[in-house]
């Protein structure tokens, strides 16, 4: 989990204090086999223009036919956002010219979106904060313009053209780059639980337009906002917000006004700048797409989707806390990513919850972090980790030995039982054998024994360490303690 500061994000200039108001329009690519209005594949990474149908390339006379699954995915996401599902929605055309927009318009939803108001809960250090969702609508993705192959030309790849997008519009409820970070992650987490968007920002499955305005702290009216288009990483979103908020504050402090405009975040220069090319094309001339009829869905259609909704992070977290007595912090870590939660639940099916929590959030996360791996690619399977935990629990190995076994598991992906067996790492729990070792230690350290007996209690730890050493680390610590105490005190 990200540690966010509890401090407000404020900008101070002269004697004025400003707060920043942020709203996000997140574009989330829908997981589906085929595109929203055509039957070509949505798969990422194909050769250019190999997943383009006549419809996607807007050939004369080609018509859109809607993909039912994409509609279901949008409704599913709407339910995950605790939002109102609109039984009637309308597809509109958003008209503008661009090289990677073959129709000359994007089919989107304007006045009547498929999903209405909802909310997302953020876990802040100071408690929970609710971020309002304004709406979610379905629309087509554009193709890709490639500017760096040829110095004089732009190349256009339409593979992405027509892939279904959910545009999720938040209310202007976000107040800091940290909140934006949490919001995006929470949204992604919910969609990954639902299987409606893979949230892969490197592949562009999740992008956002960031609306930023500033106002003096305490002011209730909103300032003029600027929209920063198509930012594709959380880090860039945060950098863009910081830059943009400061730019706006500077303008206000200089007595200048802010133009409501679309801006671009230049990742090399770390600054936002005005997008001149889109300036005169701002009148989108929305109107209902006459090639498509209104989308009407029945109660039954929605109910069937409802029954398909899995346990979502907020509920799962509550269950982990209530049932397993995890701390909110631990629960958050374990539910925020669906793969982590799946892993955790697989482990605790066979092993102790407390140990599982500690081992996953401790050792396992450290390894994954170190190797830069996703939990789904973990070198240690949930099954093997459960086995390891059980070896600790039943006293076969100590926690310390377990770390050695774990290290080997990382390298070899072996069954921990086998490792313990082969390397003879079983814990020494035979009282007779331990007694022999203890006697030897007492015999060899007669001076320390008399010091101990004359009241130097702290030396007990020394004896334990010596016995452990003699047992090559395999002695059962509880037993060693017990026998040592009897011998020394007796």
């Amino acid at each position: 989990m990200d540690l966010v500061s509890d401090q407000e994000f404020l900008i101070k200039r002269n004697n004025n204090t400003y707060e920043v108001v942020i709203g996000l329009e997140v574009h989330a690519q829908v997981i589906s086999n085929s595109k929203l209005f055509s039957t070509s594949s949505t798969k990422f990474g194909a050769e250019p223009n190999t997943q383009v149908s006549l419809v996607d390339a807007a050939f004369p006379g080609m018509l859109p036919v809607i993909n039912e699954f994409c509609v279901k995915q949008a409704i599913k996401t709407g339910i995950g956002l605790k939002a109102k599902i609109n039984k009637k929605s309308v597809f509109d055309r958003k008209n503008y010219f661009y090289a990677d927009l073959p129709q000359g318009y994007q089919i989107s939803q304007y006045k009547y979106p498929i999903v209405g108001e909802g909310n997302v809960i953020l876990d802040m250090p100071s408690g929970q904060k609710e971020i309002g969702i304004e709406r979610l609508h379905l629309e087509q993705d554009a193709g890709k313009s490639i500017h760096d192959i040829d110095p004089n030309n732009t190349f256009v790849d339409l593979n992405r053209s027509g892939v279904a997008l959910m545009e999720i519009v938040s209310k202007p409820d976000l107040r800091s780059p940290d909140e934006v970070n949490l919001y995006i992650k929470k949204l992604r987490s919910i969609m990954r639980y639902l299987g409606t968007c893979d949230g892969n920002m490197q592949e562009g499955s999740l992008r956002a337009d960031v609306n930023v305005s500033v106002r003096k702290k305490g002011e209730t009216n909103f300032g003029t906002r600027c929209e920063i288009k198509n930012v594709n990483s959380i880090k860039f979103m945060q950098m863009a917000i910081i830059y943009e908020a400061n730019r706006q504050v500077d303008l206000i402090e200089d007595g200048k006004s802010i133009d409501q405009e679309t801006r671009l975040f230049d990742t090399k220069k770390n600054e936002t700048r005005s997008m001149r090319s889109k300036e005169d094309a701002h009148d989108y001339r929305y109107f209902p797409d006459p090639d498509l009829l209104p989308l009407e869905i029945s109660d039954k259609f929605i109910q069937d989707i409802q029954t398909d909704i899995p346990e979502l992070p907020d509920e799962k977290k509550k269950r982990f806390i209530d049932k397993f007595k995890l701390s909110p912090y631990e629960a958050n870590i374990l539910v925020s990513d669906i793969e982590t939660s799946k892993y955790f639940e697989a482990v605790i099916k066979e092993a102790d919850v407390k140990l599982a929590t500690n081992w996953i959030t401790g050792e396992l996360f450290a390894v994954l972090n170190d190797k830069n791996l996703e939990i789904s690619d973990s070198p240690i399977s949930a099954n093997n980790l459960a086995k390891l935990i059980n070896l600790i629990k039943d006293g076969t190995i100590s926690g310390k030995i377990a770390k050695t076994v774990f290290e080997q598991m990382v390298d070899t992906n072996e069954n921990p039982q086998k490792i313990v067996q082969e390397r003879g790492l079983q814990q020494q729990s035979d009282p007779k054998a331990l007694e022999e070792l203890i006697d030897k230690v007492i015999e060899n350290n007669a001076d320390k024994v008399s010091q101990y007996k004359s009241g130097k209690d702290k030396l007990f730890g020394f004896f334990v360490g010596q016995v452990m050493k003699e047992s090559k680390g395999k002695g059962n610590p509880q037993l060693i303690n017990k026998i040592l105490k009897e011998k020394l005190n007796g």
Partner: protein
Amino acid sequence: MSNITNQTLSELIKNIKSKKISSTEVTKAFVERSEKSKKLNAYITDNFSSAIKKAKNFDEKPNFELKLPGIPIAVKDLFCTNGVKTTAGSKILNNFIPSYESTVTQNILDQGGILMGKLNCDEFAMGSSNETSFFGNVQNPIKENLVPGGSSGGSSSAVAANLTPVTIGTDTGGSIRQPASFTGTVGLKPTYGSCSRYGIVAFASSLDQAGPISKNVKDASILLEVISSFDKKDSTSIEFKRNQYSEELTNNIKGKKIGIPKEYRVEGMPQEIEDLWRKGIEYVKECGAEIIDISLPHTNYALPTYYIVAPAEASSNLARYDGVKYGFRSPGENLIDMYEKTRSEGFGEEVKRRIMIGTYVLSSGYYDAYYLKAQKVRQLIKKDFDEAYTKVDAILTPSTPSSAFKIGEKTNDPVSMYLNDIFTVPVNLAGLPGISIPAGTDQKGYPLGLQIIGKPFDEQTILNIAYSMEEKIGFKNQITDWWI
């Protein structure tokens, strides 16, 4: 046997089926006459040699079960045809060869039809005289320098001049019925949703429909039977029980109630048309139908509504012609420059005018005043018809307010050109079926048509009424072959 090209579609089908003539003979006859008729400028692209080859193939392995056994047919150049250039009458698609077939033309091919060529039309079907085509105006075979109507002007001319036995056009505001009326042919616009729009170059999506143009009503019913189909590739295609229109065709219209809308008596309409209409009323009465006076109070608002809705949709539908994926491109210094030059040089004046109107009525600040307003008035126009159809089975009106005019006569006055469609446009706005049949001539000897408008999906009733009127009228087109 009479000259092949004079025969109606049903005669040709009968003669081919009874092996009196072969598909090759028929195809060659139409090709030969088409070759001799270049002066009419009815074709944009011919497919003659391929058609003859296909006809030979048909004759080698004939299938007489088909509805159009080896029948050569030329179609409006708005239908995309696999491997055959499709231009929509525009320079911007001058070099475009589709790799796919429109559903409507596919239906024709599936029933044994043979594509003879692509017929001239107004650019993107925007026009009422076929004068906006990039490929030049079309001559009306009735008389030299007379327009054949539009936008399916090449189609109406080709049928009237016997260059093709039948044809298909498209009708957005009257583009089948008005040219049919101007050339003494039969033209039918089906109910919106009857014929798939898949593969038809779009003009105004909520109004466009394909339909037959033919020499007589029977032929229209045969062709409608072939082209009308439910199509999953068109979201506005409607699933309903389609009749075997030609088999169910009857001249028995006894007891049918036929409405006469008083609002169609427009100011300045020539007396001849008024007379023709009255005659039409007499004919249907003689056939045993009942005449009922009705009112369609918003008739006068149909054209202004149409000239908002159609250009608005067109401005968006034509945005794809941008020089990027196919068609004409004018090189530019940058992307925007390329767009602006390509579209400025690639589109003709009327198309540009309509794109401008459409862009304006959708633009911010004007949407409610124009586009939304028009959609509301469209609702009122539709309600007028709904109301009328509680009392009548069909409506009888003139097809056009005038007969064919001279080439060049109206090109400088867009509004007077638009007025041509005054009787046909309401039918498109309400999505209804309508048929125009030749009903007589004016003093100059130019054909005039009457229009029968039906209830949604009730093409059979208007075909039957047209069929019985046709018998009474006994119209014979006077074609002198002046161009040969």
